[in-house]
């Protein structure tokens, strides 16, 4: 028989801090919730849904766990749509329903040179990863972003070997960043570890480079999710064995060679 403890809780908003926004980029917030009473492995995520959403917006929203510290559960939220916008309007004291920690996590290989590749809000899971890594001197961050660097919690990456933030506000800067990405990844092709989190085009680029360079790389996917617990089969990704597996339970972290990203995937031709 399985235990019946409930991993779905109502937490309180401790703090909601606007970190920046405007200039064509969606606004960013740090959200701290009351301590959840569990620990996590970096790369894991939670589902969050404020009860005040009532009957509209029927899904929770998946957010990476940035960290769990004494003051609570830290999240980074980029307000890009209906749900994240409403999340960004939460005020201290309000109640939010949270279930988690969910999913698998990034590999931690303390002695391997480790490259964190973050695109925009993809920085979130690396906050905890960097802080908890046993040998931060082996870890490097390469971070492409659109808001000014000050908008992101880069101080949390202070202990790393190197943290490099590259702004990509226009197509030119973006192209240069991708170039730089390739250059940097080359250094981790043999015996290193590359971990990436960010928008899908970014992950596609990283995946292609990793396959070409034969670098060991993990990607954290951001598939649309309804349940977050493996039940609805709405979030599936195609893995290396040509199976459709739930991103929320088999992921969100996949080895680059063990996952197809949507535009890579041949049409499945599944029947109804």
């Amino acid at each position, binding site marked *: 028989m399985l235990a*019946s403890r409930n991993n779905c809780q109502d937490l309180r908003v401790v703090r909601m801090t606007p970190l920046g926004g405007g200039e064509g980029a969606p606004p960013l917030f740090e959200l701290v919730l009351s301590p959840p009473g569990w620990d996590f492995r970096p790369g894991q995520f939670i589902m969050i849904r404020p009860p005040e959403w009532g009957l509209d917006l029927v899904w929770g929203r998946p957010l990476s766990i940035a960290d769990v510290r004494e003051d609570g559960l830290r999240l980074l939220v980029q307000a890009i749509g209906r749900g994240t916008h409403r999340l960004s309007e939460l005020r201290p004291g309000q109640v939010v329903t949270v279930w988690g920690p969910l999913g698998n996590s990034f590999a931690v290989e303390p002695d391997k040179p480790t490259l964190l590749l973050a695109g925009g809000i993809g920085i979130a899971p690396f906050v905890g990863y960097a802080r908890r890594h046993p040998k931060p001197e082996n870890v490097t961050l390469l971070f492409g972003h659109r808001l000014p660097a000050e908008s992101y919690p880069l101080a949390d990456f202070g202990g790393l070997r190197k943290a490099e933030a590259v702004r990509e506000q226009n197509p030119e800067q973006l192209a240069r960043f991708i170039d730089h990405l390739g250059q940097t990844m080359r250094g981790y092709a043999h015996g290193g570890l590359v971990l990436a989190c960010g928008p899908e085009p970014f992950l596609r680029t990283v995946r292609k480079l990793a396959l070409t360079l034969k670098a060991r790389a993990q990607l954290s996917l951001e598939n649309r999710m309804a349940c977050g617990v493996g039940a*609805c089969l709405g979030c599936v990704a195609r893995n290396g064995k040509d199976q459709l597996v739930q991103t929320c339970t088999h992921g969100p972290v996949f080895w680059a060679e063990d996952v197809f990203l949507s535009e890579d995937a041949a049409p499945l031709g599944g029947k109804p």
Partner: protein
Amino acid sequence: MSSLDTIVRLPGLTLKNPVLTASGTFGYGLEFARYGNLADLGGIVVKGLSLKPRQGNPMPRIAETPCGMLNAIGIQNIGVEAFLRDKLPFLPWRETAVIANLYACDAHEFGELAAVLASVEGMTALEVNVSCPNVKEGGVAFGQNPGQIRAVTEEVKRNAGSKPVIVKLSPNVTDIADAARAAVDGGADMLSCINTLMGMAVDIRTRKPRLANVYGGLSGPAIKPVALRCVHQVCRAVSVPVIGVGGIASAEDILDFILVGAHAVQVGTANFMRPDAAFRMASELPALMEKLGIDGLDDFRGSLRA
């Protein structure tokens, strides 16, 4: 907690309370063991099962809509064999009802599937999904035709041994009472209603449908008024017990369905609003009944003053 009796007696099975989970929204049950005690539920209807494993439809398969969602999963499932081997043994089937949801493309296949499941001790009942609206771009689906509903029901019944057979009805029909009568004529012990409404969503930026399958099934609170109407119509048309499904998101909603005549209910999309939703509803129900002066479900059932 109240001491009120919420037991529901149905043909061939007894539920400790009227709260079941709806197929496809509760996985194989085990996914929710971290959020409540499965044995506290009235029962679990597992994800639609087919004879062979199915990959389902291409992605994207889900889209959020006003007070609801669309899905076109396409009955991805591990197949009946893997289910019986890898999932069922871990479900608390001695303590609560575990109901299979059968998916097939013709009556014969339905019969085969029923035969496999009928022999298994842990299966409490069989629910027949004749109403999958996830057909590629329109056309009238299987479960919209009374003749086919009857044929499938007969075939399943013939193979189901002593297991009670529930037929799940589609709302995408002109007259759901007709469909209900067809199922009962075919030997259905109970009916569940409703499955999803056929719907669609598009993205004006990409000019693409939000579901790769183009059409999908609409579920959630948005459809509750339609579900309630269907259950009311079906309860008046046939005399077998009816299980209400569609948009249930609170203990109050459960009583809505029982008031119009349902014996039990299934909680679907609400499981996504929070994974302990069904557990909470099951535990809140007795207190709500007490507050409203409802002594027992049998008295309350169908007591609508209309």
